[in-house]
């Protein structure tokens, strides 16, 4: 059965690794639903967060294939229960939408969104949350006209206690001198 999985991948910062990772998905014709990369808690080590909907045996294969690539330190897959995750969305709406009544203001309050910038022509609203939440605000704002919309990829941290540093130590221990 297919399910949504969040992959967390730790890499060295090497040009080309993103390509090496994505070809593992594309050669199987799998769609990457979201991808985010940034430096992790360890300087020089990067964290990739990838969301994909596949079977569990496929996600196991993917993780092993990814971890096998040179420059990849460790790869994991998680279900939604195992992670705390977040996305951010930005909405550009015409300023006049705010002028008529207080409906937009109410929406922004109820969604816990905030206003980043006010210009005579437009206002930029920011909302963080899960995809359903940012999507709900999108739907609610639609009637006022959305000039632009963008949503980030998912970022996620795991609930498990074992941190990547512990895995990296294990990796060091695993190998014999050749």
């Amino acid at each position: 059965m297919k399910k949504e999985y969040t992959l967390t991948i730790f890499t060295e910062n090497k040009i080309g690794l993103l390509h090496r990772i994505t070809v593992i998905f594309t050669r199987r014709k799998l769609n990457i639903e979201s991808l985010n990369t940034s430096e992790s808690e360890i300087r020089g080590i990067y964290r990739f967060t990838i969301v994909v909907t596949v079977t569990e045996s496929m996600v196991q294969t993917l993780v092993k294939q990814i971890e096998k690539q040179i420059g990849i330190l460790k790869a994991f897959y998680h279900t939604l229960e195992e992670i705390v995750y977040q996305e951010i969305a930005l909405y550009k709406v015409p300023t006049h939408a705010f002028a008529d009544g207080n409906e937009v203001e109410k929406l922004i309050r109820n969604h816990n969104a905030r206003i980043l910038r006010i210009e005579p022509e437009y206002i930029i609203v920011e909302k963080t949350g899960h995809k359903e939440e940012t999507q709900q605000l999108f739907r609610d704002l639609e009637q006022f006209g959305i000039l632009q919309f963008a949503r980030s990829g998912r970022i996620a941290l795991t609930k498990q206690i074992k941190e990547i540093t512990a895995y990296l130590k294990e990796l060091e221990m695993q190998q014999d001198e050749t």
Partner: protein
Amino acid sequence: MQTKTDARKAGKQETIERISGAEALMRALIIEGVDTIFGYIGGAIMPVYDALMNYEDKVRHVMVRHEQGAMHAAQAYARIKRRPGVVFTTSGPGATNTVTGLADAMLDSTPLVVITGQVGAAMLGTDAFQETDVVSVSMPLTKWNYQITCADEIPEVLAKAFFYANSGRPGPVVIDITKNAQFDEVDFDYKKISRVSSYVAKPRPDIADIDKAADLINAAKSPLVLVGQGVAISGAQEEFKTFVEKAGLPVASTLLGLSAFPSNHALFTGMLGMHGNYAPNINTNKCDVLIAIGMRFDDRVTGNLETYAKQAKIIHIEIDPSEVDKNVKTDVAIVSDAKQALELLTPKVKNNSHEDWLKSFAKLHEVEYEKVIRKDIHPTKGMMHMGEVINRVSEKTKGEALIVTDVGQHQMASARYYQFNKKDSLITSGGLGTMGFGIPAGMGAAIAKPDRPIFVFVGDGGFQMTVQELGTLAQYHLPVKIILLNNNYLGMVRQWQELFFDGRYASTELVNPDFLKIAEGFGVPGKQISDREALDSTLDELLNVEGPFLLEVKVQKMGNIFPMIPAGATVSDMRLE
């Protein structure tokens, strides 16, 4: 990286010299023990070739006729020497011509270091003359690749290239070097690499898994061992033999595992898979413990996975963790180099024999012999069969020659009917099935092992795909005996058309040239035979030929390779006719 000043402080400035990137590359290769390079010069690699001239006493450069030929030659060289084969090509078309060889080496775990020239760093991305994005093109076909844009990177990147290519599960590495990096100067300070912290070259097997495997093997009534190329790559042929002899385990081989265990050994039961032997395929679905060592359960071995060895406990010894549970779910997985695992496992298995179980293989083999083999190797009428030619070569060379094949029917016949009694004796394209592999691979084999008799079996289709390398064979007078088994068809595809496409022979009949004239034009002597009576004496002549030779044997046009497991069928449903 150590600078000149640091070195001077340390009082060893003599070890660090300032030289061009091209010169640094050559020195790096020499430090890595490279003695042979297969390549083809072109604009973007000229500085490297210029530096190569300074080292002609240490490194032999084999000038091929096409970059694909350099790749297959280097692959054969690497598989015989068990160290990276080295290829030089220029940018653009030179580099893209390596793609088939990279894919082949990737699937067959062959260590290569391929150096491609590239346009100057300032011109990258401008669609310059002969510019291709080689790093992107080769990304899914390499174990590692890297573009060097600055001469300073050369020593460290080359050291990594050699380490990655030949450690762990070996594979091809591409190093793309921009022209400016070849010209620019670098402080040459080279350190070989034997460890990279983020990369596990030699995973340490878990002793608990070894114990579990030993328990399963000791309790087994009808065990079967599958030997793959991993046993040869890790140099564990002796350890493997000790292991199976001690526990009395019947052995079946993958295509690339052939010659890791002697074909004439009492425990050898034949080849696995689509065109393998009857007994090991049938008994795969009868054994109670299946022990797979250094192999990856390729679909040509397993047939339908849903019905593959479901009754058996599976032990998988494999160095690449991503192969474990990929196709066949294991009961015990030992992630390890085959040699290391066998050294730990053998002391824990009991002295044993499985006589009745072994007899069941012999019985099945008799069935195969009567229905297939006898007709293949001792036909009495009609045109010659591929099997009979290969069988005669096997007998005349006592199973001790080095066999190189192309891809197709003759390849399967070679795997089936040559008796591989000596280790490292078969070079063939397994995973990728590359037609055109044979002649250039024979060239690489002859350079790696000039003292062994080398036979290339090739069909009339594959022969014409890399025929230009006859020129290289002639130029270097390489002792390669090519036996062209000519059936005037792309035989394997024709066989499938006969069996699965109602005999509609779309584009499989070949309009062939005069092969002897072609060989003669390249300076390779040859002979053609079509009579069975001439086979024996001609092979005797061939054995005594020095240098390259082409023997064209006209064989039956409609010959089929049996037994056969049709694609997607179950191993135990192998067809004998």
